[in-house]
């Protein structure tokens, strides 16, 4: 009997034992009105350094992502037990309350070895609370043992070796809470940007092998109502030369510009709309004169001069790293040389008017 009681006691204490299974995601913390002070409070990861996602989180990737100063972005989605996202052919999927999109911005010491000596800078959370989506970011300490809530933004110096073997330094900007919303809003309501069906419609290598993400999510019960991937819309991969140039360029502009340059978003007053659904030439910048560009015009007359990237404000502002000139105006300090090259190639290929 005594032994039985002792055993029971030991069992009850198991939670504290190092060999115990990690408790699941703290849904009460996820849904709380106020943000948790530390990333660890959400229990989204099984370890303090957030290298091992907790049970219930699924990695995902986008065909064409936003450029963020060459940082690696590790994306995870959490859905509460038994909950699924609803299919939407246009825009982001309809995620249930309790959904968390987790994105860690990190620099490997050398971009050519992305899994080696990786420094985490920040982990951003987009949480679907009962009242709507909320954006928070957690900044990692030097020791990579803890990430704490940072609401007012920060600058972090990071170094890495780029794909060409050059040493790079970046004055990396952690956004303030309002800046999160500047990009993540439609009609003044905060919303995710990336996880649209068309941008998820691609292959990801999971622990048990490669699979289309829409198919994987459907099979795992994370997504309902989706058609077969072949019947679903699909965003091109901006960096796949096998895909048509037009599709790659439009995918790039959609991911890098259209969160603001959208009639329902922050840059609506510019009249420049760069989403994939836009088909009107002036709205896309073709022959369009600047409105409030200031020195961002670079002494050029139009957004896009077909056939002439050097005469196109769009390419000029993408190629700048100067505040007041560069576009996007948030989210980068470095020039995305490969992205600029793609857009220049696209403009050059347009028949001159």
């Amino acid at each position: 009997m005594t032994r039985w009681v002792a055993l029971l006691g030991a069992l009850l204490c198991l939670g504290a034992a190092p060999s115990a299974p990690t408790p699941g995601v703290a849904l009460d913390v996820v849904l709380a009105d106020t943000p948790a002070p530390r990333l660890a409070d959400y229990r989204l990861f099984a370890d303090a350094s957030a290298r091992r996602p907790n049970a219930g989180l699924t990695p995902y990737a986008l065909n064409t992502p936003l450029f963020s100063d060459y940082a690696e972005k590790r994306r995870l989605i959490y859905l509460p037990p038994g909950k699924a996202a609803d299919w939407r052919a246009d825009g982001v999927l309809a995620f249930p309350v309790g959904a968390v999109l987790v994105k860690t911005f990190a620099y490997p010491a050398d971009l050519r070895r992305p899994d080696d000596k990786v420094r985490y800078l920040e982990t951003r959370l987009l949480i679907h609370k009962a009242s709507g989506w909320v954006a928070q970011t957690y900044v990692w300490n030097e020791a990579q043992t803890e990430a704490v809530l940072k609401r007012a933004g920060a600058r972090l110096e990071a170094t890495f070796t780029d794909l060409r073997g050059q040493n790079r330094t970046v004055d990396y900007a952690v956004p303030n809470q309002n800046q999160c919303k500047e990009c993540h809003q439609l009609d003044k309501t905060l919303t995710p940007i990336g996880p649209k069906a068309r941008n998820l419609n691609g292959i990801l290598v999971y622990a048990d092998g490669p699979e289309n993400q829409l198919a994987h999510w459907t099979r795992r019960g994370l997504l309902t109502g989706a058609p077969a991937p072949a019947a679903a819309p699909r965003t091109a991969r901006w960096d796949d030369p096998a895909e048509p140039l037009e599709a790659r360029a439009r995918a790039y502009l959609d991911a890098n510009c259209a969160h603001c340059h959208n009639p329902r978003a922050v840059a609506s007053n510019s009249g420049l709309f760069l989403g994939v659904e836009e088909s009107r030439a002036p709205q896309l910048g073709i022959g369009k004169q600047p409105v409030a560009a200031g020195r961002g015009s670079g002494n050029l007359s139009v957004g896009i001069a077909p056939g002439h990237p050097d005469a196109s404000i769009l390419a000029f502002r993408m190629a700048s790293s100067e505040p007041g000139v560069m576009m996007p105006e948030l989210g980068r300090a470095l020039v995305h040389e490969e992205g600029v090259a793609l857009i220049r190639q696209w403009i050059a290929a347009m028949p001159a008017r």
Partner: protein
Amino acid sequence: MVRFVAALISLAALSATAEAKDLTVAPGGDAQERIQTALLDAKPGDTVRLAAGRFELSDGLSLDVDDVTVAGAGPEATVLSFKGQKGAGEGLLITSDRVTVRDLAIEDTRGDGVKSKGADEISFINLRVEWTGGPKETNGAYGVYPVASTNVLIDKVTVKGASDAGIYVGQSKNIVVKRSTAAFNVAGIEIENSMNADVFDNVATHNAGGILVFDLPNLPVMGGHSHRIFNNQVVDNDTQNFAPKGNIVASVPTGTGVMVMANRDVHVFGNRISGNRSSAIMLVSYTRKFDDKSYNPLPRDIVVRDNTIGRNAWDPEFAGGAMVAKMMGGSLPPVIWDGVTTFPGLPGVAKVRLSDGPVLNLNLPGPGLVEQARPSVAKTVGDAVVSEPAAVVLPARQAALSR
């Protein structure tokens, strides 16, 4: 008695819940994070109070809470310096409603000075926005920049050095700009793609152009109309236009007093306009190519009357100006109209009443067709009966801010 006490208690409770607080921030280290945190922590009714002194900022600041006042200790006392700015398109961005920014200075932003987007009932009072190195093409575009807003109040604001417009109101409705000074900008004050602006008691001096009322195509809000530009001092606008090319203001001739482009129901009266070498008042069509059937490029239903017009237009900078001036014996009439009255696809004939003569009518057959000008000069041009827009009335709470 009991009922009285009960009422008193409930009153006290009410005022406690509604009690506004001050969040005071002093200059010093971590100014960026401390101000931004206050702007995030503020609740409706609160004031973010920036103490006297110099704040060195490294990034843009932003406010997204309704009913907040951001107040300094005066435009010479509280200075937000963005000389070391590394990111963001402006110094301070406001995206919430019923916000007042007052009594402070914003210096040397890399892009625009203070911008509000979609922020209704926005007030800028007793501010100084300045690029301290003087007029330069590398300065930011706009000093005070409300856009896509309803109910805009700009009062006792000074802007210097903007490479586009010092005070710029875009795509907005119900606007008051008064008692402000714009100097050494490309454009002093510009009202663009907007409805119902009263611009009065301002000083626009040493800009390339003093006061501009424009409408541009292919924008979500178009068809600007119903503005009153009155009792302003538009004098000595003599800074060489330093706008980066491509921007519409780069086409404003240096030494322009008041310029109206592609708008209707604009009334210009009671202003003192002198010392502007290209023209005192210029009414022109939008001349660039555009692809927008809903856009009207002509100024129409324009009234110019009862202005005090001094020496102007002695050395016009625009194409053909010198030639016409020569024909007229050295200088141009102070009021110039391009004379375009019809445009293909648009109904009607543009009408004006320009009574501060002499008036030069270029009688152009279409926008920008200067080589086909048939210039004529008359004491007055046009007799359009255009009733003056009603005075702009702001919400009472907002109007009370600037008594």
